[in-house]
């Protein structure tokens, strides 16, 4: 199971490394969102709540793009048949997708968080970085568990690309609430503040619940 997951994950990452379809598009969308937000809000620089909101909007939008494309390789040309024909556990398939999406999100954030610090953020990014990275990684885990499930459902529908963001955004509101609250303190003008423990806890619990849902449902969501 563990080795299958690694192999499947390697396949997904290799496909992305060769094709370079999803991650650049996600990063571009996130960057464009930041630029749009600059003009829409009419602000030279942001801090605190507004900065947290802007960052998370950009991340969430780019995540919906990644979620919509997550199972596309499988849905085209009978790719899923091929994967299902191999003697791997279906849980490994879903788990590999969760980790793949997580990796994509991290790669996108490596680009857009510094860009955000450069373009929009008022306070300095460097002192905020350790805590910010913690919250980002935790929330990425939540987005990845939710996203893999949503991607697997949406890809079955004729409305695939339409439905993925519509399903993902409401489902991601609870971790978003916690993440923005935590990030607002980190990006405050007077330097990063402490994070109340309940916000990371909510995000972790949310990731856990969706992880359990994935374990309960994986047999039913993967199909040719």
């Amino acid at each position, binding site marked *: 199971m563990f080795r299958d997951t690694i192999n499947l994950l390697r396949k997904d990452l290799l496909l992305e490394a060769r094709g370079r379809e999803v991650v650049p598009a996600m990063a571009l969308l996130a960057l464009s969102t930041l630029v749009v937000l600059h003009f829409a809000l009419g602000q030279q620089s942001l801090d605190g709540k507004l900065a947290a909101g802007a960052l998370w909007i950009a991340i969430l939008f780019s995540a919906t793009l990644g979620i919509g494309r997550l199972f596309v390789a499988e849905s085209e040309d009978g790719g899923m048949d091929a994967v299902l024909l191999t003697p791997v556990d279906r849980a490994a398939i879903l788990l590999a997708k969760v980790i793949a999406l997580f990796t994509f999100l991290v790669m996108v954030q490596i680009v857009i968080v510094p860009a955000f610090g450069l373009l929009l953020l008022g306070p300095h990014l460097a002192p905020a970085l350790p805590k910010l990275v913690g919250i980002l990684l935790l929330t990425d885990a939540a987005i990845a568990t939710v996203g893999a*499930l949503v991607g697997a*459902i*949406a890809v*079955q*529908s*004729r*409305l695939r690309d*339409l*439905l993925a963001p*519509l*399903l993902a*955004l*409401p*489902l991601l*509101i*609870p*971790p978003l*609430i*916690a993440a923005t*609250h935590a990030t607002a303190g980190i990006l405050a003008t007077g330097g990063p503040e402490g994070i109340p423990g*309940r916000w990371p806890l*909510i995000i972790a619990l*949310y990731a856990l*619940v969706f992880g359990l*849902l994935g374990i*309960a*449902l994986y047999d*039913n*969501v993967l*199909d040719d």
Partner: protein
Amino acid sequence: MTEKRKAPGRGLKPLAILTALTLGTAYGMVFFWTPNEADQGFVQKIFYLHVPMAIVTLGGFILGGIFGFIQLRTGDRKWDLRSYVAIHLSLMLALGTLITGSIWARASWGHWWVWDEPVLVSFLIVFLLYSCYQPLRFSIEDPDKQARYASVFAVVAGAFVPMNFAAVRLAQAYTHPRVLGGAQNSMPGSMQITFLLAIVGMTLLYATLWKFEITSKTTRMQLGSIKRRLERDNPGSPA
């Protein structure tokens, strides 16, 4: 069709009569028996419609999730139909809850929409999520897959409902007029009884509508299969 020939709509009439009686009594009591609330006056009476509707809506969404779960366990599409009808009805009631909640907010706070009101906001999020149920369901053609993925959605969304409420509530100040619950439950007896009766009535209404919808869908399917059989046995006859 191998299932036993039980009249599909059995028990619907007494259920409907009971619903009409209970709801009629409850709202009669609302207007003629319960006192006006001291703070908000007559407007507070929308509480007897809004809150039962909200409770039944959420119960229906969770029921849809449970039915979906049974469908995934058993693979019997009957449960998918039940889940579908439960969610479908709850979605309509959710719209009603949002509208009545908005009216109440306007009357008691002066705004049609209040973002620091966690229940209303949670309802909107849940409503947005479930609005995707039907597009998802009807964009999957294969009937078996449709039943399965609709059920997966029902289970995921059903689990999401309580989590979402908890998260939104944590994020905001408690500004809702908490009529029930809390340490100082100051509702007079007449209000409590009326409120409970309104909840029972709303639940019965949901049950009646659910049964009606199931009956109508089952009957239509049976009619379809009879028509097909007729066509097969007498080809060329206008069925």
